[in-house]
């Protein structure tokens, strides 16, 4: 871990990031938080106290499915994977995020 100050995940984007990470392959909770840190070049710091509630809610809403599988270290962990509904949700979220970030960038650059 670096000493650079970590950013909190922007409000409302945690679900989008979780879904994105899980597109590639099923992953357990710790793996998701690690992957998130790595993909954001260690800028994002996700509090597990926020991560797990999000995971459980996405699961409860049918976006994710979870099952217990052995890890590479031969332990058992709860792996989350995307459902069809999760993929659709990701598409929608992504499109909206694209528009939001385009709009924000336009405003900032136009100013």
């Amino acid at each position, binding site marked *: 871990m670096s000493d650079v100050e970590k950013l909190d995940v922007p409000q409302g984007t945690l679900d989008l990031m979780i879904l994105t990470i899980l597109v590639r392959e099923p992953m357990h909770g710790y793996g998701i938080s690690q992957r998130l840190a790595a993909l954001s070049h260690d800028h994002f710091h996700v509090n597990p*106290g926020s991560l797990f509630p999000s995971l459980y809610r996405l699961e*409860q*809403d049918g976006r994710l499915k979870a099952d217990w599988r052995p890890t590479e270290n031969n332990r058992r962990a*709860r792996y989350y994977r995307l459902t069809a509904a999760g993929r659709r949700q990701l598409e929608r979220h992504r499109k909206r995020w694209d528009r939001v970030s385009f709009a924000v960038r336009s405003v900032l650059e136009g100013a």
Partner: protein
Amino acid sequence: MTLLHRLISMLRWVIHRSRAERELNDEMEVFVDMVAADRMRDGVPAADARRAAVLHLGGVEQAKERVRSARHGAWLDAAARDVRHGLRMCIRNPTFSLLAILTLAIGVAGTTVMLALIQGVLLRPLPVLDQDRLIVAWKDLRTLGDARYPFGATEIEAVADASRLLVNAAGVSAHGVGRSVMIENSVSSFVNDALVTGGFFDVLGVRPLLGRTIARADDVEGTEQVLVISHGLWQRRYGGSRDVLGHRVMLSERPFTIVGVMPPDVDYPSGVEVWRTTRSVPTTGPFGDAARREVNLIGRLRPDVTIAQATSELTTLSEQLDANAAPDTPVGLRPVVRSFEDVVVGDVRTSLVALLTAVVLVLLIASANAANLLLMRGESRRGELAVRAALGAGRGTLVRQLFVESLVLALAAGAVGLAVTWWSLKTLLPLLPDGLPRVESIRIDATVVVSTIAVAFVTALLAGLVPALLSLKADLVSHLRSGGIRGVTGPSGRDGRRILVIGQVALAVIIVAGAGLLIRSVLRLQSVDMGLPVDRLMLVNLDMPQAKYADRERRAQFLDDMMSQLESVSSIAAATPVNVSPFTGQGWDVPKFTAEGQSVEQAAANAPLNLESVHANYFDTFQVPLVRGRAFTAADREGSQDVAIVSGDIAARTWPGKDPIGKRLKMGDLPDPKPKWYTVVGVAATTRYRDLMRPRPTLYLPAAQFQMTAQMLALRTTAALDLVASLARDRVQAVDPDVRVIRVAPFTEMLEQPLARPRFNAFLLSVFGIAALLLSTIGLYAVMAAYVRQRDREIALRLALGATATAVRRFVLAEALWLAGLGAVIGLAGAAGATRLLRGMLFEVEPLDPSSIIGAALLLMAASALASYVPVRQATRADATAMLRSD
């Protein structure tokens, strides 16, 4: 995501909770392990790595809690958890729970019983159309007494025609129900009958359950007379059979046909069993056309007409009618208009409201008691609460859980209370005094159940929330740090409990004082000097065939024969005819009289008189002493000088300081060209024959000179009453087999009726008083027990330092008596204000009667001393050295 889907997943979560909980737990463990494993790879020692991992998660339990509360249906889950937790806490502590539930149940049951009574008697609308528009009117005699002068059927008809504010009007007997003999298939019995004019039921706007009501066309003399019967009589006598219509019965010796049955709850005039027309009473009897004259007006106002407007219109109409009134009718009397509801419910409202007030005080005491118990438990649970707060339970969660716990208790208490209510109503209703209006409509209905739940809920709020907040007020973490698991009570809790106990004692003093006042009233009433040797008197009710005894001479002869026949029985000392039953308040009135020499103004100030038309042996039979002058004799007959005997109070008021013998008086207060003067020949002691509550100034006239309608005789006996009863029956048969003896009853039995309501009120308030006393004593006991427990170390120290057991007991007792005493003093002040509510229910006892109020305070003090006895003993029994060593 559809709503349905969400609902299903919510349910799935709730249903598969235990599996989900296990999974959540495992997942958190795995997470911590993985984080720790990473740290260890970086060279951190195992123990440190694990602690860091838990810290990273933000605490295992806390993280789990966050996941749980992020789920849909989390609130449902939380509520279920709270209720389960509440139940668990209640079960874990059965003594506490039982005590709290019982305490609350007493309060809830008392309140619901009173609410059921009030709902039935006062609040449930009367079974008439638009009761707010119904009025009852009579005329005021403008005298000191409460004498009401009736309108009369003829005037009511005239008023109904002329009025622009009344939709319609009818007449109803001014004296309420009468008692008449009803014969059906040669079985005779009494029924309560009410005389009404034809349009009566149309004015009320009630529809019959069966058949029809009494139409105007029925209110004609000579035709076949019709009867409408009450629901109660229909059930009792005819088993609710539809065949009742068309039944022919004899009532007061005239044939009637039953044409209709009223729905339940139609109880006007109060106690009525049959309604018949005023014209169904023969005018040839001794009362002439009194049935037509002595009716009050019942009318329906047009919408938005006020009682004041109606009064002024009736006054105007009445003045117009006075102008062409018959010469012997009184004129210039002012109409009095009351709402129908007022007339029906009457004075019961005061006593019900007073009783409800008392029971609400009991409920408050019960709540205080429950609050006290919860507070104490809150203190002993402070350790538990602190631990749970440290483990991540939010303050809101804790308060919510404490509240749900008391709600569970209160609901249990509500259920127990409802059962007790059901049982007490079943027990109480038969005990209710006769003449309490609308008893039929008292029952447990939805409103009562809802109010029980509401009462239970409010109780939970009072009893649960205050202690919950108080016990959280102190800083829980510092409590943990101080190592105090065995509760060291914060000052807030102790003061709160002291205040609760003081309040309980104060409230209990008020209720007990009220009960004391009512009990003293009843005792006074029971022992009041009636001026009659009540326990040796009996009343024989006769049914004399009207046709046979319409003739006055014949009637007088029969009564004379009866008297001599009865007096020939050795155990009957004397017998005399009387016109009305004793202690009913019923009788004949002389609303106005003038003493010779009085001006019209002076006469107007005279009190109305009770009139008794009596035989010569009346005073001897009742052993009423004649203070002056003589009794009537056989020489006082028609044609000789008109004489009178007056009660002592009239004599003293009318001719103060003078000898009343030889003075003359006449009825009425207006100048009269041909006055009929009665010469006073005797002065009798006052009696309460007519009215138990107060002796009425009475004018006695000789039956031979006035009139006698007696259908009953009073006997004074020297033997057992039941023996005399059968002898009396035989003698009546011997004189005339056509005369039936309806009832032979001792006077003491007739005292029951006027005593019933005061006794009932005293009984109910005593029950509340006992409940209040018990509850507040328990409350004080609990507080003292806790007080001793909390100070056991101090007490042990004192003992170890050489204080005697007596000294320690004295100082503990002083604390108890200080609390009780303060409560009693506050209660005294409260009682002084609250007992005023009872004023109308008291008999010869002042609302501030010191022996009742101070007695109540002393009783509470004594009970408190008793309640603290056990804790005081415990204070010194504990082994002092063991106690000191224990920490």
